[in-house]
């Protein structure tokens, strides 16, 4: 088990997959992170050297990911609401924000477009 940014990953996991488990890191960011520290894409967590683990953790702690990013998204929504924009109002009503029709098929919009949006 290897700790990366306070999360324990089993050694058999791919480093790339493990990085992508953080909220806010996708394919592009993880590939670039791997390239930055010269880790090959099929590297397993167990194969990482100590220095590489520390490097990755340091790089991740500088990035806006996980709760910071979630908070930022919520703040953005709140700001829209407070400035009284149309998008803010639509968020408050739980309706589609980007001009979609609302006659039917808006279940997802109702689910997502809330002021207190739950981010997974």
């Amino acid at each position: 088990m290897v700790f990366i940014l306070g999360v324990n990953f089993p050694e058999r996991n791919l480093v790339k997959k493990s990085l992508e488990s953080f909220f806010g890191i996708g394919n592009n960011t993880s590939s670039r992170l791997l390239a930055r520290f010269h880790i090959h894409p099929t590297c397993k967590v167990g194969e990482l050297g100590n220095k590489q683990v520390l490097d990755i953790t340091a790089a991740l702690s500088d990035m806006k990911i996980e709760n910071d990013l979630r908070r930022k998204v919520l703040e953005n929504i709140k700001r829209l609401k407070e400035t009284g924009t149309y998008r803010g109002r639509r968020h408050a009503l739980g309706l589609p924000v980007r001009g979609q029709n609302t006659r039917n098929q808006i279940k997802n919009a109702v689910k997502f477009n809330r002021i207190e949006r739950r981010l997974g």
Partner: protein
Amino acid sequence: MVSSFCWSCLTRLPTASPRPMLPPTLTAQRVAAFHTSSPLLALPPKKKAPGQQSGPKHRASTTFKMKKRKVTDRVRPPAIGERRALRKRIVLSNPNALEVADMQDISADNMVDSRLRGSILGLPVPMLDQLRAVQAFKPKQGWSIFRRPGTVTRRESLELGRLIDGISDKPEDKGKVVKRIVTGARGSGKTVHLLQAMSMAFTKEWVVVTVPECQDLVLANTSYAPLSDENPNVYVQNQATAALLSRTVTANQKVLSKLKVSREHPALKSPLKRDTTLEALANLGIQDPATAWPIFQALWAELTATSPAPGFEKDFASRPPMLVAVDGLAHWMKETKYRTAKYELIHAHDLVFVQHFLSLLKPGKNQQSALPNGGVLLYATSASNNPGVYSLDVALKRVAARQNRVDPSSPDYPMPTAFSNPDQRVLAAFDSPKSSIPTEGTLELQTIAGVSREEARGFMEYFARSGLLRQQVSEEWVNEKWTLAGGGVIGELEKLGRRLTVPAQV
């Protein structure tokens, strides 16, 4: 309350009318009933079968429901590496095939014997472990259909045998270096040609260094790191180098265990003992892959040493010639899947491993040939797993043109087409001028084509004698197969030979 009936009337009623002689049911039938339908004649109503009821029952749900899939018991996934082992498995023997009685094994005597041309020379059993160690056998080759592995002695292999024999034994060829790029159509036997070279080198006790699959180094499947802080743009692959060391040690253990170090190696972290054998030296790199590259360089310096450094004279033995075999060269001529820190693709020529092997194609430096103790470089391209690099095609045409004495300044010298933007590094890698050292040959291109009809006949007879081919191997039949195989392309001949043909029973 008084009843409305007159009891006396009722009591008299039966006596008033005579009693009917017949039972009432029968009489009722004869009398026309008031209704036209007669319920008594009607057949009893059929009971509905329970399955025939259509439509949902009262108040049942009308929505469509998917049937739940049965949850099957999950079988255990295969263990780690099991599937790969199965995929890469090499079977060298088929106990059902017949033993070919007078098949000779390859040896120092018969590898130069031109009378054996067209016959099959078996690989000696003790050598199989060495050949397996250098990964000379490939999984898709048809070794598993014969009783024991053997190769056809063809014109090219006899010529190679004479070359290897000359470099090892003849004083006039001592220290000679032959550099060859082996190309040819798919199935023409390039990889088996390398295998034959390895088997000959093992019989002559050479040191054999191989890269069995160039692609493995560029697929970004092994670890990589910048070589040092001074050269951040050159990358070292420690795991791959350790694997190379391990291949070399396992295959050449007999030779390497006799040789001792002949100089100091300041690049290594810990100083070596004076009586360290080269086997022990290489094992250091296998045990600690982080030091694999400096160890490989030290090993290479030892193997190419012609004389000992001062103070090391006591244990010095002259180094044997070397065979360097590389298969699938085209993968080293383009960008790899590795990325730099800036997320740009790394060119294969920036990998220090690749650089080392490609630099051998160039004339040697410091008044020494690339292999000062002599040897053969065989770099084969692949036709079945070929990435298609235009610059390589041009470079190989240029090598062929130089071999035919076309001057690079003449208009016949192959040039890349306009706007094709060729990779200059690839062109430069094969642009090796004539060496100033007389023993060092220039880079040659060897194109392996189909086997001759006589060799094809020998090969097909081997099938027949192994019991795989139940057919009269006649001149005419061999000629037919030779033509069908695209002019004796040996991979196609093998396909024709292994197809089970049973003559019709009359």
